């Protein structure tokens, strides 16, 4: 599919850096040229300086901590639900047919549109946030798990059977490790979705603690644009770091996947996408992840750079 020649890794780095510098330069120029009022769109350097300054702000960092905590709880919970469920659905066709309808009904429900409803039920605290994140993150992990199970090499299963191992052993010793790279790719996608949801929920509820709260409150203040943008920079940076760590982890944990093998043969230790031939799975999971976010049409662009953009497009 994407057999287009990609630039070499170091070229990629330089190109990426160039892009960032260019964007930065444009923002800076627009901000300084006075095309728009300075308080509407402060120059990029001011925003970044503010973002750096915020790192020393205890209250702000507590907010970031709260957001990250909700992110981690929600993501962890969704994995704890989606992986066993995916294994069950993927290996017992009967259960699959029974649950499929429910899944197909729930999946298109936009999680962001559920924010008001869930807030009514659970209040505006971390419980709502975690519940929504969990809901949104279950899908990519669930579908990648099912897809990965389907991709398990039948010969690998036969091998284990031939040595006298039973159904459960095949599941735990072959299907689970074989599916792990797909699950990891699903988790990476969900990690971005989770961050979107965390910030969006906070933005909409507007109470308590968190990065989204900080952005929402800055938006109400006069001349708050700089703080809003600084908060957005933080959200973007968080997304970037999370994605980077997960991609790195996948490389370390799953060196045998076809993608890693081709890289090695091509003499490249480090390319972007992290999944094992999971092109299809990932695309599918993304579609479902994104599909559960159509209500986020409004919020998607609003929580920019959460890394979802970068996590999704490839």
């Amino acid at each position, binding site marked *: 599919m994407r057999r287009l020649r990609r630039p070499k890794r170091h070229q990629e780095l330089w190109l990426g850096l160039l892009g960032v510098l260019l964007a930065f330069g444009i923002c800076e120029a627009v901000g300084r040229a006075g095309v728009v009022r300075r308080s509407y769109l402060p120059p990029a350097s001011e925003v970044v300086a503010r973002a750096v300054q915020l790192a020393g702000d205890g209250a702000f960092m507590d907010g970031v901590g709260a957001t990250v905590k909700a992110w981690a709880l929600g993501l962890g919970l969704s994995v704890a639900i989606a992986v066993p469920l995916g294994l069950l659905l993927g290996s017992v066709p009967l259960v699959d047919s029974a649950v499929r309808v429910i899944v197909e009904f729930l999946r298109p429900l936009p999680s962001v549109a559920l924010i008001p409803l869930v807030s009514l039920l659970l209040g505006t605290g971390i419980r709502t946030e975690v519940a929504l994140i969990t809901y949104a993150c279950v899908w990519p992990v669930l579908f990648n798990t099912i897809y990965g199970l389907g991709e398990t*090499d039948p010969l*690998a299963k*036969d091998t284990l059977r031939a040595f006298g191992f039973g159904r459960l052993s095949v599941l735990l010793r*072959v299907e689970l*490790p074989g599916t792990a790279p797909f699950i990891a790719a699903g988790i990476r996608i969900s990690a971005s979705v989770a961050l979107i949801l965390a910030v969006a929920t906070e933005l909409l509820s507007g109470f308590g603690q968190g990065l989204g709260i900080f952005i929402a409150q800055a938006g109400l203040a006069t001349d708050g644009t700089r703080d809003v943008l600084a908060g957005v920079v933080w959200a973007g940076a968080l997304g970037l770091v999370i994605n980077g760590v997960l991609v790195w982890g996948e490389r370390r944990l799953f060196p045998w996947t076809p993608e890693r093998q081709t890289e090695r043969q091509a003499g490249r230790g480090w390319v972007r996408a992290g999944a094992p031939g999971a092109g299809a799975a990932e695309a599918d999971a993304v579609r479902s992840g994104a599909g559960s976010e159509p209500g986020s049409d409004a919020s998607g662009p609003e929580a920019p750079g959460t890394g979802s953009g970068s996590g999704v497009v490839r």
Partner: protein
Amino acid sequence: MTLRLDSLGQRYGEQVVLHDIDLTVPDGQLLCVVGPSGCGKSTLLRTVAGLQPAYEGSVSIDGTPVTGVPDQLAVVFQDYGRSLFPWLTVRDNVALPLRRRGLPRAERREQAERILERVGLEGAGRRHPWQLSGGMQQRVAIARALVCRPSLLLMDEPFGSLDAQTREDLEDLLLEVHRSDGATIVFVTHDIDESVYVGDRVVVLSPGPASHPVLDLPVTLPTKRDQITTRGLPEFVALRAQVGRAVRGPVASD
């Protein structure tokens, strides 16, 4: 273990692969199965292994019909690369069948290392299958099948990717293991010389579809075999010619 096939037939959908195969492999015999590509040798092994139910007829072991995977079975699959687990080290791949024996971990590893040494892979235990060459992977699969000292061993072209020297070494290793452990072995190969050298008996299958045995030949060579002298025996040459003619079929025989 005595292996017995009774008018065994096998098919994929409408395509008949094996038809009316009657074969008894006495306990401790090393049977070589030769036949043209696509005739159904792998299908035969899969059926004996209980991985695929028989379509017609039956497979039985020591008089009991095979319904699932028999006990004390080991298989070397033709597609050895795909049958190794990439997330396990070579040593853990080889030690895997021993888990069924409830041996402690240290003991399993030690046995794995010992058998790896015998297939010429000492020092490769900590690597991963995808870091090895095709021939090395094939030897890992062989080591894994031998480590649990099976009573029934099915090998599907196990030496296909090996260079001549390694291949001969492993043929001799197989004979040695066979002599000491006395397993019943079904050994599929393309190589006519190899079938005569290794086997107690050679069965030639006809080209598919509906493949069946066209030659069932006891190998009347001394049990103690040697790569140079055995292959030079007039009897070896005669047996080889006989198998060769059967593989070519009646038309091309001269």
